[in-house]
């Protein structure tokens, strides 16, 4: 439904995006996730048609909406793309009521159809009772839903959402992102979301592209991004964890201070066919997530509690290993240990993620 091929854009000589490619199939929800300034919003605006690309091609359905070839750019005007857009600040029209906001993109429709479509949309987002209210009379969450209804009303081929929940408080953000996902799935809408918040991305998206410095680092499912990050940036940006130095023993084993890890050694090391071919002693960094460290009173391996953060269901302990390395450990919340205390731990890694030094 949406395809980007080798899309690039630069501001002057400064590249904003380089070689961005991905595909969304119909009904799929994609997400571009990355720190601010990584180019994700620019990518969204390129797809919407507000920015011009300097290389590559963007297709919506079978139609080429933006392309740059032979030194000439071609770009369909934003209003001709049939793309819905939910803005970060919602950009609701303040002089129009909720119903009129939703009807804004429907001027080509006969009046009765328009009224029905507006009612249908308001019903979908659960705001039928606020049809005559004005945007400034609504709460943030309600404004958000009006923005969604307004964008969906003209039946766009593709829905774009720019940090749609960042103006809401945390609780509402989680609730609403699941709600919006349900609505999109129910209507079988292809959507692309842009955010810096991985919880939002995980809650909403089927596929996520982690972006940094204008480049998509990894385009994958949330599960794979967490468990099989392909490089240090993704490993660091997604979830928590530390990198411990280790040594490759063979293609199935890596040794770190905590012991020998068993499992297929991949990541950027094996990408080059490196570790499986290199001799013993290849030096790597191994990703250890907090849930890879298991608290076990019977274990002989002891670590000292250096910091602790109570998170309700569990504790996040920062543990100092005898060798001076630090790891994070996620431990059930009834295991309340004091700072300075030594506790037993063992490894529970079922998949080795290693990066060559």
């Amino acid at each position: 439904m949406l395809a980007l091929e080798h899309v690039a854009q630069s501001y002057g000589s400064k590249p904003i995006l380089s070689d961005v490619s991905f595909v969304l199939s119909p009904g799929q929800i994609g997400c571009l996730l990355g720190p601010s300034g990584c180019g994700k919003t620019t990518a969204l605006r390129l797809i919407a048609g507000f920015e011009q690309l300097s290389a590559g091609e963007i297709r919506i359905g079978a139609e080429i909406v933006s392309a740059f070839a032979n030194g000439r750019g071609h770009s369909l005007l934003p209003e001709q793309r049939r793309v819905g857009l939910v803005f970060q600040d919602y950009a609701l029209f303040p002089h129009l009521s909720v119903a009129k906001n939703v009807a804004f993109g429907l001027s080509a429709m006969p009046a009765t159809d328009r009224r029905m479509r507006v009612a249908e949309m308001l019903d979908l987002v659960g705001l039928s009772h606020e049809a005559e209210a004005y945007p400034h009379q609504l709460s943030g969450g309600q404004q958000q839903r009006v923005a969604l209804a307004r964008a969906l009303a003209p039946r766009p081929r593709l829905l774009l959402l720019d940090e749609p929940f960042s103006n809401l408080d945390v609780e509402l953000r989680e609730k609403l992102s699941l709600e919006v996902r349900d609505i999109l799935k129910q209507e079988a809408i292809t959507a692309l979301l842009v955010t810096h918040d991985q919880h939002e991305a995980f809650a909403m998206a089927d596929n996520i592209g982690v972006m940094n410095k204008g480049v998509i680092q990894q385009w994958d499912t949330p599960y794979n991004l967490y468990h099989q990050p392909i490089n240090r940036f993704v490993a660091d940006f997604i979830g928590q964890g530390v990198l411990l130095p280790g040594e490759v023993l063979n293609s199935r084993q890596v040794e770190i201070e905590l012991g020998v890890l068993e499992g297929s050694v991949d990541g950027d090391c094996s990408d080059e066919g490196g570790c499986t071919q290199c001799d013993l002693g290849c030096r790597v960094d191994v990703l250890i997530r907090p849930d890879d460290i298991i608290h076990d009173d019977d274990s002989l391996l002891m670590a000292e509690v250096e910091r602790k953060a109570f998170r309700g269901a569990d504790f996040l302990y920062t543990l100092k290993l005898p060798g001076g390395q630090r790891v994070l450990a996620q431990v059930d919340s009834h295991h309340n240990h004091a700072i300075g205390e030594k506790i037993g731990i063992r490894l529970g890694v079922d998949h080795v993620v290693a990066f060559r030094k």
Partner: protein
Amino acid sequence: MITAEKAPVAGAFSFVSNASSRFGPWTVALALALLTLIPVTVVALAMLDPDQAIWDHLWRHVLPELLVNTLWLVIGVGIGVTVLGTGLAWLTAACEFPGRKFFSWALLLPLALPAYVTAFVWIGLLDFTGGLATWLRDSWDITWTPPIRSRGGVILVMVLALYPYVYLTARTAFQGQGRRLLEAAQSLGVSRRRAFFRVALPIARPGIIAGLSLALMETLADFGTVSVFNYNTFTTAIYKAWFSMFSLPAASQLATILIFFVLALVMLEQLSRNSAHYANSARGSGGARRIRLGGANAAMATGFASLVFLLAFAIPLIQLLIWTSDIMVSDLDARYFDFAWHSLLLAGLGALLVVSLALALGYAQRLQPTPGMQLTARLATLGYALPGAVLAVGFYIPVAGIDNLIIDTWRDWTRQEIGQVFGGTLFVMLLAYSTRFLAVGFGPVETGLARITKTMDEAAQVLGTTGMKRLFRVHLPMLRAPLLAAAALAFVDIMKELPITLMTRPFGWDTLATRVFEMTSEGEWERAALPAVAICLVGLLPIFFLVKHSDART
């Protein structure tokens, strides 16, 4: 030995009794509200006791012409300033074309030229004996020039002089919207051109109407321009009734009718204030690009902005300078130092008074932020809507009454005759100036005070700085720029002001503005240019101030 610090005794707290803390603010605000209430009431009283003979005369010979002239003027200027101001504001706020940055602020410069100066320059240029007309005749044998001395001419000149009011407010409104809303419209399948009419214009409407009502209030208040054109309106009629027919009742009856027009405008403005509630919620993020005009459109935009700039500012100013350099040697004499001194003195005293009163009103409102106080403050600053001619009559009558009372009482007591005590002194002028220009000073002061947040006051208090110390260490430093702006604006407005000065000045007290009036009423354009240049150059100062502190630079 360590002892616990002594708990503060009750005396260490300062309890301010509610009654006394309310008393001060209300006294100030009510006193200032009287400034507008007195002249309006005085003038309106004339309506209760109409002199039938005068009324018949006015009704038969004067009013029909005045009403027709005024209506044409209001409609023509209204449409003109709206189209010109809004169009230019949209071009410089949302589009990109060659010279946009320059025009963004340069289009404000006509504010420095009083309308009556622009008026006499254009008449001087286009009249049969004028420079342009003579040149066309001699060099090209063209005997036709635009008939400037016409209803269309007055309207055109007023539009050129007053469009910046709409330009300024509309531009701020367009910029406040950000481009996000237009993008939202586009993403919903609406083209940019249609989005302007469906989104940008409706949201900017309160701002445009606010600017429009200001421009129309200036139109109704105008005395100088219509005098130059011999175009009879209420202000010129009031002047003639008073100074040619010596009939104060006729003058005040005319003033009452004028007040009805003003009231309509005040209501229009109030309407725009009421519907402005959503304009603030539209304060979107900007960020997005301007609409880049290409080829012919860009050339048209630059050409249009240049034309307005030339007609409204550059050509009049250059012509003034040429005339001035021609006349300088023969006409600049000792009298001019008197004119200039009188102007500076009046403007200086007036500005000082305006700023002090505005500051007092600002603090009254800050200390007592209730709806009632807000209404009172609005009433007190409503004087800007009252034409100078109305204020002159409205203050002259009660002051003359008080004077007569004093003279009579004095005669009864001492059997000696004395002259006027207040009448014919600067007192009446300054009173009228303060009323008319309080709003000019109050605007910046109010914004400045609002910028000093409650939490800043509390932060200062927690750090041990309260009362007078807080005033000097926190408030005044933060208010310096707004106070300067208020003073500069009031100074220039008073310097340009014509009807109040003309009608209430002490005998023989000529200023630069009255000199311009005197010379233009004799058709001596060149000799009028000399004092006019001085007014315009001083007038440029606050424009630069305005440009520097507004968003007009971007």
